[in-house]
């Protein structure tokens, strides 16, 4: 009888621990200074606030997809480096990075690369405990749709949704946030490489890079919710460095409506991105 009681009490204890964890997820971070969105009584009364930052395939679409963009395989993080990533933080960052890489490759119908990067993403996702995402079925669907670019993008987007849903529903908000940062940094890295750090190479691409000062504050606000996590704290420091580079650039729209800034400041933004990306993919 005592054993049954012990088991029952342990069950209750587990229940209590999980309940505590769940209640935390419903708190609203009221900081609004950096994201500029006004937090009022309505938002404080909301059951939850989602920071819906762009997933890797949307980052690739926002930053890279335009008529004069080109595919350069050297810009991708090689999949052979996968085994270097041994911590949760490095795995999550590189799941985002590989996610943007496979989205970039899919835009240019580099189908074998897409399949290889999808398989690598699956392995990292499994190591992070995200099962049934980027799964065999998705990879088979990819192989069966090699000539259908739209369907490939839909398969990728559904894989990101599955991954995000798993992480959010299991309360792993930090991991979900780190994946997004990895994806965004990689998108910026590819865009900066394509621009050759030269404002005149492609004014549209330069403008899109400079427009990211809009996403950055939201990303920082989102991460600030979890800054007691040491890994997140370091990433926040990196994002603040990028943010400072944007503030210094103080971009303005030219006559054609494209954002522009001084060459030196643009160079500084891209160099900051390169330095941080290098640290993440090491």
């Amino acid at each position, binding site marked *: 009888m005592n054993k049954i009681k012990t088991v029952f009490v342990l069950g209750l204890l587990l229940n209590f621990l999980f309940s505590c964890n769940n209640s935390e997820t419903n708190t609203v971070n009221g900081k609004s200074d950096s994201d500029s969105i006004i937090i009022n009584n309505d938002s404080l009364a909301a059951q939850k*606030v*989602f920071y819906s930052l762009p997933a890797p395939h949307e980052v690739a679409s*926002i930053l890279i997809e335009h008529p004069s963009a080109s595919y350069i395989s050297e810009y991708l993080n090689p999949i052979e480096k996968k085994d270097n990533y041994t911590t949760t933080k490095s795995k999550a960052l590189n799941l985002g990075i590989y996610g943007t890489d496979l989205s970039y490759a899919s835009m240019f119908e580099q189908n074998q690369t897409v399949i290889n990067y999808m398989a690598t993403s699956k392995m990292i996702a499994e190591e992070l405990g995200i099962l049934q995402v980027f799964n065999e079925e998705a990879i088979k669907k990819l192989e069966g749709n090699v000539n259908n670019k739209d369907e490939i993008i839909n398969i990728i987007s559904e894989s990101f949704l599955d991954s*995000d849903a798993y992480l959010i529903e299991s309360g792993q908000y930090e991991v979900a946030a780190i994946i997004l940062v990895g994806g965004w940094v990689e998108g910026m890295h590819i865009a900066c490489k394509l621009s050759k750090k030269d404002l005149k190479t492609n004014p549209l691409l330069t403008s899109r890079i400079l427009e990211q000062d809009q996403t950055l504050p939201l990303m920082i606000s989102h991460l600030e919710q979890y800054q007691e996590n040491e890994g997140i704290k370091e990433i926040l420091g990196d994002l603040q460095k990028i943010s400072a580079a944007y503030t210094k650039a103080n971009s303005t729209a030219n006559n054609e409506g494209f954002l522009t800034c001084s060459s030196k400041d643009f160079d500084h933004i891209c160099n900051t991105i390169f330095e941080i990306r290098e640290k993440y993919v090491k």
Partner: protein
Amino acid sequence: MKFKLYLTLILLIAVYQETLSQMDVGCKVFVKKGFSTLDTSTFTHDGRYNALKLSPGQTFEIYKPFYKTRNYRIVVLADEKLPGITFEILDVYRKPIYTSGKYDITQYYDYTPDKNQNLVIRVKVGESEKNKTDKKDTPETFCVGVLIGYE
């Protein structure tokens, strides 16, 4: 004897975690029902999971960057057991850009911003007369979700 106790404990934890993971299935399957309204042949889903279980009268918000000249479709859907939903799209100063009709189960709005901006999507579950008069201590919750697609 101790071995049996440990075995029972391990089994209990396994069953408990399995139950939890089943509970955590949450709203993913429900949200994917919105893909037809999103029209994935035209709009690519943004890959983000914005869904949770709510009871009548509750709200949630989404903050998202929107980019000029891109076409977006925002689909808001609620479980049919709920009395319906309303949603608003607000700018950073919370000035409404769009306010939906009242209390449908699935609604969508197509939007093409003329400038880059961070927006708030605010979703409220409606309250039926029955809900207003029949307040329970722990009201039942059902899935509510938002899908955002870009063209």
